[in-house]
């Protein structure tokens, strides 16, 4: 019987503040508390709370990862959302998924650093939720054979990756596969995922409006055993506002799916109950970002590369937590200068409005960090 899996990424960075050069050597507070609080409060009330309540009230099973850098901020804000998440996981419906605490790019440059950040996230999840994850989702679905090897060594059973055009030209993403490291590998079905996360409220889309019955029919007609719908948690209520009908859509979906005998599942419960379609090797690093589905969203231009190299060069310092908080992928995302449709997405998320200012503030901070902690 066919299953669908919803996986949600819950993450917000600690954005750095507009840090001026004259502060170097004098001010060591790097993060933009007011802005972070403002954005996070909005997202909590528009998205996290209504969506988590929705999951609880509708007994909606799904897999969720929550970055450590976000959990820190939720604790600081003393937000009721944390208890809602706890309630949801206590119900047993949800699966908590592991990642790097800092939502970083550590996987692409330092296995030891990568492993440390994963372990720190595990400790945090155990402390807050009493759960040790068995499924791993790397930052923005960054994946390669090598990354899966490192993750395997840390005891994980399942891992997620993007079903890029290259991958799905050879493999139907709607099955469970095995990585070369022998983890259960799940490939995102990007078309069906993006129908919800990007296109849902797009009135120029020829399938607009999207109702649960129509979508359930698409799922039904899609060949395979499991449809992997991976997206940002903020899809619900923030990227797609409540007024678009996104919550009603989600509410009706399980019922419509049941008409075709399709059930919702979590990653691990599906992994335990079904066989592998075969082994897949992905040597080149892929991700779910931008249209390129590679690392170019974070390391596509010279600004990003120089800032990243500078950050790396500060390894072995006296303030690892702050240094690692500066590794969060979002800092590099804000420095992107890509054109065309992707740039609009980048600009939407950029609190500095300019990739150049994102670079200047970031390098100013690193200069202070270098002086103060190295």
């Amino acid at each position, binding site marked *: 019987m066919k299953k669908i899996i919803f996986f949600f990424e819950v993450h917000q960075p600690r954005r750095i503040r507009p840090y001026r050069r004259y502060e170097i050597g004098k001010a060591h507070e790097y993060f933009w508390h007011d802005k972070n609080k403002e954005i996070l409060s909005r997202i909590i009330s528009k998205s996290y709370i209504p969506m988590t309540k929705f999951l609880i009230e509708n007994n909606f099973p799904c897999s969720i990862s929550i970055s450590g850098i976000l959990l820190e901020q939720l604790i600081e804000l003393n937000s009721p959302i944390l208890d809602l998440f706890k309630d949801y996981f206590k119900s047993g419906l949800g699966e908590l998924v592991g990642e790097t605490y800092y939502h970083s790019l550590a996987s692409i440059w330092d296995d030891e650093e990568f492993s440390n950040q994963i372990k720190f996230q595990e400790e945090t999840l155990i402390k807050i939720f009493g759960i040790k994850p068995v499924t791993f989702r790397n930052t923005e679905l960054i994946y390669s054979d090598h990354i899966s090897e490192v993750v395997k060594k840390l005891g994980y059973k399942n891992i997620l990756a993007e079903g890029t055009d290259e991958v799905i030209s050879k493999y139907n993403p709607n099955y469970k596969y095995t990585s070369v490291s022998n983890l259960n590998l799940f490939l995102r079905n990007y078309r069906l995922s993006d129908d919800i996360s990007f296109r849902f409220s797009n009135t120029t889309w020829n399938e607009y409006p999207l109702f649960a019955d129509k979508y359930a029919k698409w799922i039904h007609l899609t060949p395979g055993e499991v449809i992997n719908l991976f997206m940002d948690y903020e899809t619900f209520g923030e990227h797609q506002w409540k007024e678009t009908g996104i919550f009603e859509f989600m509410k009706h979906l399980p019922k419509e799916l049941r008409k075709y005998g399709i059930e919702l599942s979590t990653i691990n419960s599906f992994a335990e109950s079904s066989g592998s379609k075969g082994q897949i090797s992905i040597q080149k690093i892929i991700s779910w970002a931008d249209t390129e589905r590679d690392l170019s969203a974070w390391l596509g231009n010279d*600004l990003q*590369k*120089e*800032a990243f190299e500078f950050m790396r060069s500060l390894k072995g310092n006296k303030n690892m937590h702050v240094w690692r908080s500066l590794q969060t992928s979002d800092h590099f995302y804000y420095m992107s200068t890509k054109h065309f449709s992707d740039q609009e997405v980048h600009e939407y998320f950029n609190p500095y409005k*300019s990739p*150049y200012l994102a*670079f200047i503030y970031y*390098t100013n901070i690193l200069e202070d960090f270098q002086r103060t902690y190295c």
Partner: protein
Amino acid sequence: MKKIAVLGWELPPIFTGGLGIHTLNLYQRLAKFYDIDLYLPYFERVHINYPFNLKFIDFRGKFSYSYESSRDFYDIVRAYNEALVEKFDMNNVGLIHAHDWITFIAASRIKQKYHIPLVITFHSTEYDRSGNFYPQKRIIEIEQIGIDSADTIITVSNYTKCILLKNYKCAKDNIVTIYNGVELELFYVTNKDYNLKNQIIYFGRLTPQKGPKFFIEAAIKVLNQNEKVKFILAGRGEEMDKLKSIATEYLNKNIFFEGFVSLKRAKELYAKSDAFVLPAVSEPFGITVLEAMVAGTPIIASKNTGVAEALKNILISDFWDTDLIAEYIISLLKYKALRKQLGEQGKFEAMKFNWDRTALNTLEVYKRYL
């Protein structure tokens, strides 16, 4: 087909600013569509091969003039305008296009006399030229006469449009913003290398309007931390001596005044500089920003620079915030990636501003009346 009568002031090779460049580039292109009479004060030296009809207004009998000496400038303008009205040839003219206050009195009188539709362009306002210090009331009054007489007003930026709406009596719906272009073939540099040059450039007239004083203030703040950098001011103007005195001990050691520079030298300066800084107090457009950009040079411009409103790949500051300008300069000197990314993306962006687009947008305005 009806003719267009253009009331102008200057034309390359005899020109001092954006107005001359605009006049040549615009009417070279529009001459393909319309028969154009271009009225100008008498020049001694001109090209002969313009594709439009040059109509020289000779009023030398009364005055000798130069654009730079402003003492008699107002009277010269009045005389030019009077002569323009006298000698205007209205035969078959369907539209008048007048550029800046220096032609507005004549434009208004000719329109009254012959009932021909009038388009006016503001390349700058008195508020820009005075750098917000003591704008001349009599010139503002002439600008208002132009506004009152015009059927359509063209501004070179939304920045200038806002100045009109704020300081003059005019209707928003009558104003169209049309950006200037850049002469790509003159300034384009292929494969600029972004290795450190330790050189920062200012290029423009040395008048309060363009903010050279703030360039020097920022330079001194950088030099206090890094004595290896050279700051070059290219351009002439009445402020030269005053500016030299501000440069103090850095004069001719780190801060250099180049005076007038040729096109060749300008291009060389762009190519050999790490950044171009324009801290203008009030700059309606700022063609030099685009010129430096197509040469691949990173830009720091003030918020009060018209073209800045349409550019993403530049750094922007308040003109008076020389701390921030100095910080931007230091970051540019320090990080090659910042120079390269700003330079390369900026070049690509600036290339979108071409005179063909300016001409087409102007054509759209003409079509309302012809």
